């Protein structure tokens, strides 16, 4: 391969699992994001409705998109790390990065 990584990349037996998980979580977030766009297009005035502690739907949904992104990222990392540990070759263990 002509464009080898800047540092050698070890084997990643958890790769297929992480790819599948990533796509599923990406699609889930896409639906959540699309919901925000759809409400704005189909019923824009609904965004002004007060829904939580005096905050309107636009504010709550907007903040939720940011917070849910972080929560989803943490869940994804937890699941990936667990699978990496489960499938790790004990011989490779001392060389593993991600410190």
């Amino acid at each position, binding site marked *: *391969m*002509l*464009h*080898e*990584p*800047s*540092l050698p*990349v*070890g084997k*990643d037996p958890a*790769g297929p699992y*992480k*790819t599948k998980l*990533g*796509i599923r*979580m*990406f699609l889930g*977030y896409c639906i959540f*994001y699309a919901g*925000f*766009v759809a409400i*704005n*297009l189909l019923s*824009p*005035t609904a*965004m*002004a409705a*007060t829904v939580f*502690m*005096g*905050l*309107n*739907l*636009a*504010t709550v949904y*907007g*903040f939720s*998109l*940011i*917070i849910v*992104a*972080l929560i*989803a*990222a*943490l869940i*994804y*990392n937890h699941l*990936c*790390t667990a699978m*990496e540990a489960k499938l790790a070759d004990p011989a490779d263990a001392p060389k*593993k*990065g*991600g*410190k």
Partner: protein
Amino acid sequence: MAITVFLLFVLFVVGLSFYLGNKTKTSAGYYAAGGNIHWGVNGVAFAGDYLSAASFLGICGMIATAGYDGFLYSIGFLAGWIVALFVIAEPMKRLGKYTFTDAVDANYNSRGIKLCAAISTLVVSVCYLIPQMVGAGVLVEPLLGLEHHWGVMMVGAIVITIVATAGMASTTYVQFLKGGLLIVFSLVLVIAVLVRGISTKPDQDGKVPFYEYTSLSAVKSGETLTVPEGGWTVLAVKDVKGGLQFAKLSKEGKESWWFVTTADTTITLKEAQFTAVKADGKYVNGVKVVDGLPKLRQVGNIESIEGDKEAKTGSLGPVEFLATMSDKDTLVKTWKSAVVTDGDAKVTVYYPKVVAGEKLLRPGQKFKVEGTWLEKLDFTSLMLALFLGTAALPHILIRYYTVPDQASARKSTIVAIAAIGFFYVLTLFMGLGAMTNGVINPADGNMSAPLLARSFGELLFAIISAIAFATVLGTVAGLIVAASGAVAHDLMDRYMNVKMDDKQKVFAGKTAAFVIGGIAILLGILFKGMNVSFLVGLAFAVAASANLPAVLMLLFWKKTTAVGIAASITVGIVSSLALIAFSPELYTLYGKNPLDAPIPLNNPGIVSIPLSFLTLVVVSLMTQKKAVPATA
């Protein structure tokens, strides 16, 4: 004080660059910081790289002037990191070496991909560079009292020094430092806003007296408008596009412009501000400008807090602040501008428009979600480009090569999401804080956040301005590393096969950084006054159209071919740039009627992104003999 803080920061950054420069001897060190950056540092550096002038100056400025619509950029920019994390991060680390081109060409070794991807990197980086340099010029004026072009040249010179001395290593630590400081001091600013609370007569803690704009009653007899009381004479009435009307009045020899509003049969004239460009010079509010003075009064205040026109809330919690702002009985005075021709003078009138909080804290002021289907399509197109653009920005993608492995790439993305997400939450408070504290320059909203800081004292202004300047430095440095990699690594080394040893590759990269830095300085001066956020939006749309289909399809569609990728990148670049060039916004910029623009959309993503995907699929299917199976 501002100058001292600024100089200390710049000296520290340049010193750090020279220190790290002594350690950078190889191309891996120059382009990828040796691939040994800790994921935590890389995550904050991601934030430092990503939170550009558009985020700090542009978004805060847009929220300050258009409310929630500015926050849409925060949401879209952050959501884009989900694409980066779930789909792009680990494969990018696995496939690439130094540049975006390395990754898309990893399985093909195609000259076509190398050329197209390198050009795409250059186009996107230059589109992104222009607003950063323009932002630098805007910042320097109030900070150091220098003119725009000096600010641009100063940023260019410092960034070239940073990049040319140590490449990605110094760039990473500058971005780390700047990212961390930006978030910490933005939080300080937001706390200050909440402690101060909201007032219908903001006076910046007694430092700047609140200016009460007046209104006059007028009557219309036939086509003649008159003001019955106060000794006012109506000199002219001007109609402008959009059904707006302005009156030029005179009293005791002093001329002024007023915004004409009609409710039922009552005509009210609202005091406006104005600048006039005449043959003998520029005038502000009727006074000739000498040595940059006078300036327009800063604006932005609440007319009524939950129905009370004489109120001061005192300290507010974050939820209480937003709830108060979005109340249906809260009225906010925002400012718009219109251009009228008065004889041989070109007059820009800045006029007040009162908007209810419930309308301001939801989309609709800038992006017409309640408008025609074309306006709705434009909004959808913007949200699509913001969502898909992040994971296709070359200067962001190359940061995945600075960490040792795939797990580090993933973890640094999560740190970036946390840091960037937290900052974007703060932008809403900073923008609304500027909107309500009388600190907005009506002619240029980009400086709203630094000017908000100034309302709390010179020290905070000095720090925030220095950080804002560093914001530009960090992002420009990342862009120049990406662009120099495209020239020296992708084009010279890979595409043209210029024989170079490792030392020569580093020299080529540094030379390219000098040239691109020089071009950036020139463009930053040429594009003075252009809207920062608009240009960044353009870069996102081009990146999402040109790069994302190629990256996604090579990872997830085994029939993807080299010709398909090259064609997709080409169609993505050309279609997105063409759609932008013939859009209403650009027609306004050309001085033409936006209604004459052949393309009715300002945001091209909804057309150019699917077109790029379609091109890749069709061309790949037509060139299956050359197909090489994808690795993912």
